[in-house]
C-alpha cells in the first residue's frame, strides 16, 4: 500500500508504520478536558486549542498553517473536480479501519473514479458533547495517515459540538478537489454495449466487517474492511487504457448491484454478469449466508468497478492484478444493448436472474 504514496505524490510524508493509537497521548492543554465539551465548538480558547494541538500537528501543511477562513490553493491550469461526502459509520472503529480513514478515502475515491487526481480535502467534525478526546485524536491521526497514503492535503476544516444525545459521538464531512486528467472523460453515462465489466477485488468486505462488530450481532470473524484510497491504482489504469475506460465507480453503500444498476440506467444499456466470476471471500460469503444477505448488495470502501472497451479488458485486468489493492480483480461481465437499464446475472445453475436496486437496507431474514 505504501508504494501508492510515491506513485501519486513523491513528497508525501512517510507513515510506513501507520498511526500509533496505543501510545498517543493528549498534549497537555487538552488534558484538562478528557472529553469534548460544548466550548470546543464555541470559537473560543478551547476550540483554538483543538486546532493548535490536534488538527494542525496532524494535518500540517502550508495552506492549513495560515489558519485563515479559507485555504488558498495553487492548482495550476486545467479542470477542477470537486466532491463531498459525510460519514456517520457506527462503530467508529472497526476491523480494518475507522471513520477517519473512511472520511479521507471516501472522498479521494469519489474524485479518482471521476478521472481526477485528488489534491486537497476539507474536514468538518460534528462532535457530541462528552466524546472522549483520545478517540478524536485517534480518528485525526488515522485521517492524517490516510491523507499521506493517498497523497492529499487536508487544508481547511471546522468543528462543531452538539449537546449530548444529539449526535453519535463523531460525524465527519470531507470535501475534496482534484485536477481532472486530460483526455479522460469517464462518466456513468458512457458505458457502451460490448464493454467489459471489471471489479478490482473481493466484494462485501467492508459491510460485513461492520456487521461483525455491530451491537447485538458480534460474530467472530477474520473479515476486515477493505477501506483504502484507490487513486494510485486508478491512475495506473488510466495510464494503461486512457479513454478506453468509459466508466468507473466505487461501489460503496448498496454494493456492486446498486452501482451496476446506476450505470445501466445512466447509460441506457443492459449489464450481464456471471455470478460464478464474482470474487467473494469465503468468510464474507459464509457470513452473508448466515444472515440471509446477498454480497452484491453489501458495501465496499476500497473497490472500483471499470467499464472498458473489450480490447483493453486484459490490459486493465493485468494492471489491476499487479497492484496490491487489485490482486483479486476479475472480469465479471459485459454491457449489452438488450434488457436496457437492467442488471442480469447468470447463476451458477445456468439460469438468469435480474438483480434490482435494493429499496433500503437489506433486512436480515427470520429463518
Amino acid at each position, binding site marked *: 500500500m505504501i508504494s501508492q504514496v510515491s506513485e501519486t505524490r513523491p513528497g508525501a510524508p512517510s507513515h510506513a508504520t501507520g498511526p500509533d493509537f496505543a501510545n498517543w497521548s493528549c498534549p497537555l492543554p487538552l488534558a484538562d478536558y478528557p472529553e469534548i465539551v460544548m466550548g470546543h465548538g464555541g470559537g473560543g480558547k478551547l476550540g483554538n486549542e483543538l486546532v493548535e494541538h490536534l488538527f494542525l500537528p496532524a494535518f500540517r501543511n502550508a495552506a492549513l498553517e495560515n489558519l485563515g477562513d479559507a485555504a488558498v490553493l495553487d492548482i495550476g491550469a486545467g479542470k477542477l473536480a470537486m466532491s463531498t461526502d459525510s460519514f456517520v459509520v457506527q462503530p467508529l472503529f472497526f476491523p480494518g479501519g475507522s471513520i477517519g480513514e473512511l472520511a479521507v478515502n471516501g472522498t479521494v475515491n469519489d474524485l479518482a473514479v471521476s478521472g481526477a487526481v485528488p489534491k486537497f480535502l476539507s474536514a468538518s467534525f460534528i462532535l457530541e458533547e462528552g466524546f472522549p478526546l483520545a478517540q478524536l485524536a485517534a480518528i485525526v491521526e488515522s485521517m492524517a495517515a490516510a491523507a499521506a497514503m493517498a497523497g492529499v492535503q487536508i487544508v481547511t476544516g471546522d468543528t462543531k459540538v452538539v449537546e449530548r444525545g444529539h449526535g453519535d459521538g463523531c460525524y465527519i464531512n470531507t470535501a475534496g478537489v482534484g485536477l481532472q486528467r486530460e483526455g479522460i472523460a469517464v462518466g456513468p453515462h458512457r458505458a457502451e454495449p460490448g464493454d467489459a465489466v471489471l471489479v478490482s477485488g473481493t466484494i462485501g468486505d467492508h459491510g460485513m466487517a461492520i456487521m461483525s462488530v455491530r451491537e447485538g450481532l458480534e460474530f467472530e470473524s477474520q473479515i476486515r474492511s477493505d477501506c483504502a484510497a484507490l487513486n494510485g491504482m486508478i491512475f495506473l489504469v488510466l495510464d494503461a487504457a486512457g479513454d478506453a475506460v468509459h466508466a468507473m465507480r466505487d461501489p460503496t453503500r448498496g454494493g456492486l448491484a446498486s452501482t451496476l444498476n446506476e450505470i445501466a440506467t445512466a447509460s441506457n444499456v443492459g449489464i450481464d454478469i456471471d455470478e460464478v466470476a464474482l470474487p467473494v471471500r469465503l468468510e464474507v460469503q*459464509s457470513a452473508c449466508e448466515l444472515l440471509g444477505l446477498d454480497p452484491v448488495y453489501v458495501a465496499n470502501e476500497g473497490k472500483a468497478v471499470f467499464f472498458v472497451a473489450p480490447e483493453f479488458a486484459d490490459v486493465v485486468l493485468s494492471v489491476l492484478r499487479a497492484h496490491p489493492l487489485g490482486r483479486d480483480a476479475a472480469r465479471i461481465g459485459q454491457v449489452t444493448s438488450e434488457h436496457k437499464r437492467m442488471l442480469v*446475472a447468470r447463476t451458477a*445453475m445456468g439460469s438468469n436472474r435480474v438483480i434490482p436496486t435494493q429499496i433500503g437496507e437489506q433486512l436480515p431474514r427470520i429463518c
Partner: protein
Amino acid sequence: MKYLTEFRNGEIAQRMAREIAQIATRPWKIMEVCGGQTHSIIKNGIDQMLPPGIEMIHGPGCPVCVTPLELIDKALAIAAQPGVIFCSFGDMLRVPGTEGDLFQVKGKGGDVRVVYSPLDAVDLAQKNPDKQVVFFGVGFETTAPANAMSVRAAKMRGLKNFSLLVSHVLVPPAIEAILQSPGNQVQGFLLAGHVCTVMGYWEYPPIAEQYHVPLVVTGFEPLDLLDGIRRAVIQLERGEARVENAYERIVYYAGNLEAQQLLARVFEVTDRAWRGIGVIPNSGWRLNAEYREFDAEQRFQISGIHTEESALCHAGDVLRGVIKPAQCPAFGKECTPRHPLGATMVSSEGACAAYFNYGRFMSAEELAGAGKGLAVTSHG
C-alpha cells in the same frame, strides 16, 4: 461437507433437471411449503430449469407474510408506547400495518430494535429494568424453540419487564387446510426442511395417507430442491403417496426431542388467523397458563385498533397457490417492494417480493435474451 458449493453444482443441477424431464410423463403441480424454499427456487431459477409440465406453487410458509394484520397493528401500537423497547427480527420492520410500519414508528421516536436472537431481547430487559422489553415472536416451528427459550430464561431470571408478542403458526394444519380447500390443485408437497429439523416428520404420514399425497422433506440449496422435486415426481408418476426424507443430512424422523420438550412446556395449541387465508383451527401456538404472564397481549391492553386490509391486495390467493404473484392486478403497479400493499411483497421470502426482485415482471422471452453471450466463467 462444503455447504456453499457442494449443493450448488450447476452441472449436477442440469443433470437432475434433465432426469426430472425424463421421469415426468404428465403435468404435476407441487407446492414448496417454506418461504425460504421459494426464495431459493426463484433466486437460482430452479423453476426455469424444470420441464414445462412441472409447476411449482408457492406455499404459505413465510412467517412474515401470514402474520395477521391485527397483530401487526398491535405491534405498532405497543412499539409506539413510551417506556417500551420493541425488539423484532429485521424482516418485520417493513411489513405494512393498517397505518404505517415499524420503521415509521421508529422514525417518530419509538424505540424499535432489530435483534438476531430473542435471548438478546431478554438481556436487554435485564439491562433496562425501567423499560418494558417486548419481542415480536413470529414464525413457524423453526423459530419457536428460541422464543420458548426466551420466556423460560426471563422466568428463571425473574424478569417482570420482558414479554413476547407471539404469533406462532404450524405447518401440518396449513397443509391440511390447503388440501381441504375447494379448488385445490396441489398434488405433492415439499416439506419445509428446517421445520422438520425441529419437529421431525412423524406428523405427516397420516396426511399422506388420508389425502393420498406425496410429501418430501426438502432442503434449501438448489440440489436439495431438485432432489425433492425429483422424488415427488417419481411418487406422483407411480401413484404413490408417502412421506420421504430428501434432507437426510439434517433431518431425523423424530426431530429435535429436546426442542420439542421445551415447546411442550411453554406453548399450547390454539386456533390462529393466517393473513390472507383466515382462521385455521389448531394451527398455532400460544403461551400456556404457566407462561401467560409473559404474553404481551395480556400485558398491554391494546384497544381501538382499526384494522383494514388493502382492497387491491390478493395476497391470500397467492398464499393459497390460487394465483401467481404476477397475476395479481396490483403486482408491480400499486404494489412494489417500495410500497407493499401486502406482506408477501415485503419479506425476501414472500412470493410476491421474490417474483419482483428476481425479475418476474419480465416476460420469459426477455429473460431468455438476458445473459446471452456471457463468456466469463473463470474465477478472479
